[in-house]
């Protein structure tokens, strides 16, 4: 199929889906709205993580750090009287600055050490939030001003806001995937030294990826905080989030555009079903899901069940007789 046509079809599909999402929002009941917003948030976090963890291949467990940072930055800004939109912008800015500083420090580490470093950051942030009572309200938590209007209005508002962020994250991912930047990230993932020798400014690219990812995650945190109206350190800086997001992306297929989206959808649906029925064994079942994904679908749903893979199975073998 000619390239032009596939592009138009993709664009068309996106518009159809977007319209469906919006219409659903206006027609849904409160539970459905909440579930839909949770799903949107998962999609946002997955797409953002995918840039650092998928394309660039750096195993970041720092999602919770940025999420909590965004939640608290937005929340604190709002308690000081800043209107919500500006508070969210402030959160994005804080996220960017934090990403630059953290990136400069941590991105020098590789593999295991990078992973451990990001976990340590989450823990430290949570403890700071727990103990810095004056700024964050401490372990008791922080209450945010409630959005004016009916609960239904608020529900629809945040639903649309989160899905708008999801759309932004998707478009960002597409832009990255098709650009020189994305190409460079893939080179970095496969062989950092060779990338450097070929002219890629590895450090700059790594920090840029970290910042892009960090801003989106921080925004998600800020919207979440405004939505729930109350945040506390152990929720905002929850290490489980840092684990779930990579698992979702892995489930879908890391390093692709739609993989994070599919992974998020499948996982959230599964989780909602499990929670409803087995609340006591929630984390155990999550554990089982993780183990199952890694054993049986390591490359992700998109890759294990893709059309190209089928074609590869039935195609002739690799080039023989390379004289």
């Amino acid at each position, binding site marked *: 199929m000619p390239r032009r046509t596939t592009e138009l079809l993709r664009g068309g599909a996106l518009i159809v889906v977007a319209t469906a999402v919006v219409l659903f929002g206006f027609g849904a009941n409160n539970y459905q709205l909440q579930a839909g917003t949770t799903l949107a948030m998962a999609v946002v976090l997955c797409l953002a993580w995918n840039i650092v963890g998928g394309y660039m291949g750096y195993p970041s467990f720092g999602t919770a750090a940025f999420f909590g940072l965004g939640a608290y930055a937005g929340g604190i800004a709002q308690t000081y009287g800043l209107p919500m939109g500006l508070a969210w912008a402030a959160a994005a800015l804080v996220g960017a600055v934090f990403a630059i500083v953290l990136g400069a420090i941590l991105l020098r580490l590789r593999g295991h050490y990078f992973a451990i470093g990001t976990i340590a950051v989450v823990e430290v942030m949570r403890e700071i939030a727990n103990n810095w009572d004056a700024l964050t309200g401490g372990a008791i938590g922080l209450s945010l001003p409630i959005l004016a209007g009916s609960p239904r209005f608020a529900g629809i508002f945040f639903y649309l806001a989160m899905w708008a962020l999801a759309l932004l994250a998707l478009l960002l991912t597409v832009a990255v995937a098709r650009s*020189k930047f994305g190409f*460079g990230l893939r080179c970095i993932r*496969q062989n950092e030294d060779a990338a450097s*020798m070929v002219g890629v400014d590895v450090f700059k690219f790594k920090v840029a990826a970290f910042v892009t990812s960090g801003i989106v995650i921080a925004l998600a945190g800020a919207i979440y905080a405004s939505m729930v109206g109350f945040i506390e350190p152990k929720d905002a800086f929850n290490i489980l989030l840092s684990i779930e997001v990579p698992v979702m992306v892995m489930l879908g297929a890391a390093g692709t555009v739609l993989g994070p989206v599919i992974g998020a959808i499948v996982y959230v649906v599964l989780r909602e079903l499990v929670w409803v029925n087995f609340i006591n064994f929630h984390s155990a079942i999550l554990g089982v899901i993780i183990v199952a994904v890694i054993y049986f679908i390591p490359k992700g749903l998109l890759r294990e069940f893709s059309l190209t893979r089928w074609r590869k199975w039935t195609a002739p073998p690799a080039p023989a007789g390379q004289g």
Partner: protein
Amino acid sequence: MGEPILLIDGLTRRFGGVVAVSSVTLSVKKGEIVGLIGPNGAGKTTLVNLITGFVPKTAGRVVFEGADITQLASHQIARRGVARTFQIVQPFSEMTVLENVMAGALFAGQRSSIKNAVDRARYYLEFVGLDRFAQFPAADLSLANRKRLELAKSLAMEPRLLFLDEVNAGLNSGELKHALELIHKIAETGVTIVMIEHLLRFVVSVVHRLVVLHHGAMLSDGAPADVLQDPAVIKAYLGTKFAQRHKAELESQRLKYQEQVQQSS
């Protein structure tokens, strides 16, 4: 062949008590083909690593095309027109052959759009003879072809100075012949080449000049026939039997070299 394209002054690399490269001073003229030889562990690859910024320098200066590049990072040096191949080839194994070469064009060569990079990559794949493998995963290539891919990637960077690190290791005689033709082809486009090699017969038939490294220090530097008769080189590296056995052959090489010099002047 004219003014110097590369000047190294007192380049040294020391780590943990080991001196890998010891105060090497050398200049390479534009358009030259220089052979860098010496026993294993002599510091040849380390020297290239130092010049290309892959490894930090303990002391010394590197001047490329008149500009001091001593403090630059490896990607900056790559963009200025210095490329190198790796002894153990390092492709981007998850990408296709075409994408591997595109990387060179995108980040160091023309540095424009992805579409442009595709065209440049195809051109260089044809140049080295790998165009029919363009869509194959780089990991599926044979060793000889992987070396050619490495070469194509470096060429896509449009370097003016190219370091070849043992491009011929592991090739059979047929593949060697092709490799020789390829190197000549590259030199004809005006690229200055410095090649690290073990196969002396091969090196001698292609280079204008030989530099011998031993224990990290420069042992000899000059025309191939002279260097190979240098008693210090014979003692450290070649052995008298080799020198005697190949004296006649080297004489004929010497004459051929003189012819070349006369032709180009």
